[in-house]
């Protein structure tokens, strides 16, 4: 909401625009009330060197079609020649002339320049070039009779001013108008609030535009007022300047007054040409399905029964309730009699219609937030009062129609407010006597006695209903800054949960192993998962931004493979990455089977590297799983991968990515991979390791090599050796793997070093012989023979 300080000052003495300290104080007050000043702009500075001049002659040059030659008189008796690219002016018009040496707001300096060898003695200016709004449609034409040769600012009465850009929150619909802002700020500053309160005085004969309010639940109030004696023309200069300062265009007196009333009172309104209004009246009803109308912006719109239409008495649609008028009843230059419609529409209806049509207007923005249904009378009177300035023959006809529907909010609402509750929520020590001073000035009138008071809620605050809403008003006007800063005495001890601690432990381990953390997009393209060999049901976004990001990932793998491919394409190979994040497979519950997962990828590494990471994780977090190479996890290398099975559910996969998948992802290196379901891994409570005494007795090593088929996992042999060796075995290390023709196809030798030690005695030769026999017998059961 753009607020011009000189305009705001109509409703109270807020600040002198030339007093920087007062202006800053006002800005602070507004921000302190929740009307955040996003920007504060000095306007009304005039450009020095620009003076008024009258056009004597306009001459077209035969070789320059896009510009014309203008001869002007700047009052010094010397006719000047200027080239000009605009054609909106006529001989006799007074226009602003930027003379030599003038520095324009855009930084350009006016110098002697020529076209076709003919010099220009200055430049004629459009409004936007002088910082007067955004109009660049032509040269600024000044009022007739303007003296020549004087600064244009003086001629226009331009004063230094301030334009505040306020960020108005959704709970403050009243602050979409000057009056609402003025009321709040005046109350806070403790100054008088001057509210325009004209009363409607009909001075003409009875002339009504009847209103048939059919869907009164969507339109609580609909008034019509006939005004005649109108001469369409420009509005007053001061009004144009104010509208333009806020970024609006000045169009005509009727339209400008309509906009002015809206900005002032936050009450949208619409003037129809009575002669174009079929049957001379209104019907307000919901649309039929597929009904159409052309709106003021020229577009043809199609409606549904949730939209509220304003129709003329012949049932022809002429406007969308609270959103936009139709093209068919627009005011024209020939208009002499208008019907002023001022209504209150149900906010949700307006919101739904304007969002469905993608049609936002100044009116819809206000109605969807909630207007004051009881400001309508003031708005009618204000409209007539302001229009009379440019239409001295204006007649306000008797017979104003005020149709009301069941959707009209109650005029008097109130809340019961307990002082104890205010203090409980705010931490203040207010007493009931403090309330009227804080609340009455903003229209929340406090009545009653004792510590529980009745507070009337003003009709311009539809957001406010309950005690807590009033408490917020108390807080705002008491001042958030005065509430103080205390720290609650937490009776809870701050800590990470066990699972969160384990997640951090896991991440630290991975970082220590040289893996870096990536965060790929959890949204995938429709074919990405199947490219990764991970077919299966997925959850889709029903309103994605782009289809390439419309599927919720069921695996972290594709994102990391894409990261590897991206980095390879930037000549970074050997990447070791991990991600800890959520995956979202479908489920039958209230929500999908979302869970937390880990994926580790190591480009240029083989499966054993992933196994090594898994072993580190298993050791660090105290978890285990069977490495089941008999089952190939989907999308992984068929002979170099395994499912990690813990209990009934697989808790992960380990190995290498299938070369076909790598090819489809454009990855050139091999990729070792480890995937874990962290709900399983982190969710298990850790079992602290139980102490085992460290033996002080001497130890002895025993090397044993076994020949065994490739079909039996080494892990099994290890387990057998441990079992067979008994409790003298304290450490087991696979130190050599050998394959060779001598051993036979599909066979290998696995050499282990067994460290033996007793807790309480020296080892004897027979101890060692027993261990050896035990290990050999156990290994033999797996078909492993001791190598001679």
């Amino acid at each position: 909401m753009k607020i011009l300080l000189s305009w705001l000052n109509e409703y109270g003495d807020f600040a002198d625009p030339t007093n920087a300290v007062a202006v800053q104080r006002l800005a602070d007050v507004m921000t302190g009330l929740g009307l955040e000043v996003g920007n504060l702009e000095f306007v009304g500075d005039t450009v020095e060197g620009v003076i008024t001049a009258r056009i004597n002659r306009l001459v077209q040059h035969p070789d320059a079609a896009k510009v014309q030659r203008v001869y002007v008189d700047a009052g010094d008796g010397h006719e000047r020649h200027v080239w000009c690219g605009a054609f909106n002016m006529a001989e006799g018009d007074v226009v602003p002339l930027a003379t030599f040496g003038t520095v324009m707001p855009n930084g350009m300096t006016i110098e002697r320049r020529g076209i076709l060898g003919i010099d220009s003695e200055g430049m004629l200016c459009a409004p936007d070039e002088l910082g007067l709004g955004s109009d660049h449609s032509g040269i600024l034409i000044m009022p007739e009779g303007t003296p020549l040769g004087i600064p244009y600012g003086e001629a226009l009465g331009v004063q230094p001013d301030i334009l505040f850009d306020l960020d108005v929150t959704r709970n403050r619909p009243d602050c979409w108008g000057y009056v609402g802002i003025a009321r709040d700020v005046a109350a806070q500053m403790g100054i008088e609030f001057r509210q325009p309160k004209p009363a409607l005085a009909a001075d003409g004969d009875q002339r009504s535009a009847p209103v048939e309010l059919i869907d009164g639940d969507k339109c609580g109030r609909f008034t019509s007022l006939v005004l005649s004696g109108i001469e369409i023309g420009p509005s007053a200069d001061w009004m144009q300047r104010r509208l333009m300062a806020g970024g609006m265009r000045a169009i005509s007196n009727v339209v400008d007054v309509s906009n002015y009333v809206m900005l002032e009172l936050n009450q949208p309104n619409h003037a129809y040409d009575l002669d174009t209004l079929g049957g001379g009246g209104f019907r307000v009803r919901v649309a039929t399905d597929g009904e159409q109308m052309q709106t003021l912006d020229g577009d043809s719109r199609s409606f549904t029964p949730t939209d509220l239409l304003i129709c003329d008495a012949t049932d022809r649609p002429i406007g969308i309730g609270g959103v936009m008028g139709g093209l068919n009843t627009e005011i024209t230059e020939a208009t002499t009699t208008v019907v002023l419609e001022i209504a209150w529409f149900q906010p949700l209806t307006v919101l739904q219609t304007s969002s469905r049509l993608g049609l936002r207007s100044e009116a819809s923005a206000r109605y969807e937030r909630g207007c004051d249904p009881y400001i309508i009378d003031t708005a009618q009177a204000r409209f007539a009062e302001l229009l009379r300035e440019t239409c001295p023959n204006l007649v306000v006809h008797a017979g104003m129609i005020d149709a009301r529907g069941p959707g009209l909010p109650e005029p008097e609402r109130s809340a019961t407010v307990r002082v104890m509750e205010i203090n409980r929520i705010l931490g203040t020590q207010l007493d009931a006597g403090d309330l009227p001073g804080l609340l009455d000035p903003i229209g929340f009138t406090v009545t009653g006695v004792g510590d529980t008071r009745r507070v009337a809620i003003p009709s311009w605050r539809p957001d406010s209903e309950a005690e807590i809403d009033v408490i917020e008003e108390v807080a705002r006007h008491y001042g958030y800054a005065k509430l103080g800063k205390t720290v609650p005495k937490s009776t809870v001890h701050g800590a990470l949960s066990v699972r969160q601690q384990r997640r951090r432990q896991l991440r630290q381990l991975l970082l220590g192993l040289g893996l870096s953390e990536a965060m790929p997009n959890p949204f995938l393209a429709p074919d990405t998962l199947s490219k990764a060999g991970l077919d299966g049901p997925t959850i889709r976004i029903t309103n994605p931004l782009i289809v390439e990001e419309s599927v919720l990932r069921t695996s972290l793998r594709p994102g990391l493979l894409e990261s590897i491919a991206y980095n390879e394409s930037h000549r970074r190979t050997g990447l070791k990455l991990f991600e800890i994040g959520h995956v979202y497979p479908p489920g039958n519950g209230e929500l999908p089977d979302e869970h937390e997962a880990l994926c580790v990828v190591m480009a240029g590494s083989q499966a054993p590297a992933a196994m090594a990471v898994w072993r580190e994780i298993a050791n660090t977090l105290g978890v285990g799983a069977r490495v089941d190479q008999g089952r190939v996890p989907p999308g992984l290398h068929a002979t170099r991968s395994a499912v990690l099975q813990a209990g009934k559910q697989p808790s992960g996969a380990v190995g290498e990515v299938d070369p076909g998948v790598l090819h489809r992802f454009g990855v050139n290196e091999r990729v070792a991979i480890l995937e874990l379901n962290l709900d399983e891994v982190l969710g298990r409570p850790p079992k602290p390791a139980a102490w085992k005494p460290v033996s002080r007795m001497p130890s002895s090593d025993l090397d044993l090599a076994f020949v065994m088929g490739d079909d039996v996992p080494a892990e099994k042999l290890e387990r057998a050796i441990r079992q067979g060796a008994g409790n003298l075995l304290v450490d087991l290390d696979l130190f050599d793997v050998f394959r060779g023709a001598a051993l036979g196809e599909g066979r290998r030798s696995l050499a282990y070093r067994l460290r033996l030690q007793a807790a309480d005695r020296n080892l004897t030769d027979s101890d060692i012989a027993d261990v050896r026999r035990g290990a050999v017998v156990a290994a033999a059961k797996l078909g492993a023979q001791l190598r001679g």
Partner: protein
Amino acid sequence: MIDEIGAARETALTQVAAADSLESVTMLGTQLLGKKGPLAQLKTKLGGLSTVDEKKAAGSAVNEAIQVVTAALEFRNIELSEAALAARVQFESIDLTEYADRPTRGHAHVVTQAWERLEDVFIGLGFQVAEGPEVETDWHNFEALNMGEGHPARGEFDTLFVDHAPAGGQPGRTLLRTHTSPVQIRTMLEQEPPIYIVAPGRVFRRDTPDATHMPVFHQIEGLVIDRNITMADLAGTIEAFTKAFFGADFSSRLRPSYFPFTEPSAEFDIQRPDGSWLELGGCGMVHPNVLIAGGLDPEQWSGFAFGFGIDRMAVMRHQVADIRDMYVNDIRFIEQF
């Protein structure tokens, strides 16, 4: 006799001094001080001396010679050991800068780093860390947070909906959470007050990515519910966080704002040591309707909530010009932090 002893002693000392290795010192030790060594031999001849005085004098001369030679051997041993060590050290000389291997430590994502720093600060302030699902129900994300069907504020969240529908449930009611606030509701429903939690997490908006926005980003949310929690407690907690996270010379302020799930609501700004203000996040007293949705009696309990972006903390800390860079997973970016 005395002269013989003297000569043997001198010869021995000369030999010791000439020893040039630890091995030769050891050998000399056996040679010179062993039973067949010259001094031991002389000792055997003491009995042949005629007078007691002569025996005494020669005896002590021999003993002294043995002591002196022993000491000389020890000294030479130390001398040679030290020389050998010095020589080895000299020999092992390397240029340390020749060994310029790439560091092997991994790098945590910048967002994780900010996330964990924030968690740590709040843990220090007595908070626990709560989590919740990223795919949420409409009820947890909106309705329970005082944004019923048709609430205008819903439109401001640019929600992404998913095609999941619970068995027998309505479609179109499952979404990607637009904020971490549903964790407030889940926490209230799961545990009795007092509640002191922060909920960091991933959130989603239907926002076209640009230098300052991502459709997938991260927020941290705080919730305190206890008896007699006031808005001054909120202001004080924000202040304590500000000083703990940004530094003792930073301060904070609240100013009125609007959120459907808190009332009174506020934005909180932090003031840098140079006096400038930075808008950080939103906060307020938990709205009575939200407490009721969380199964709590607003007459018994009160509380506050606050929230802000985690990604922005990382952006600010490292002066990242374009937030999108944080999610490209370019290792040249990741390795910087």
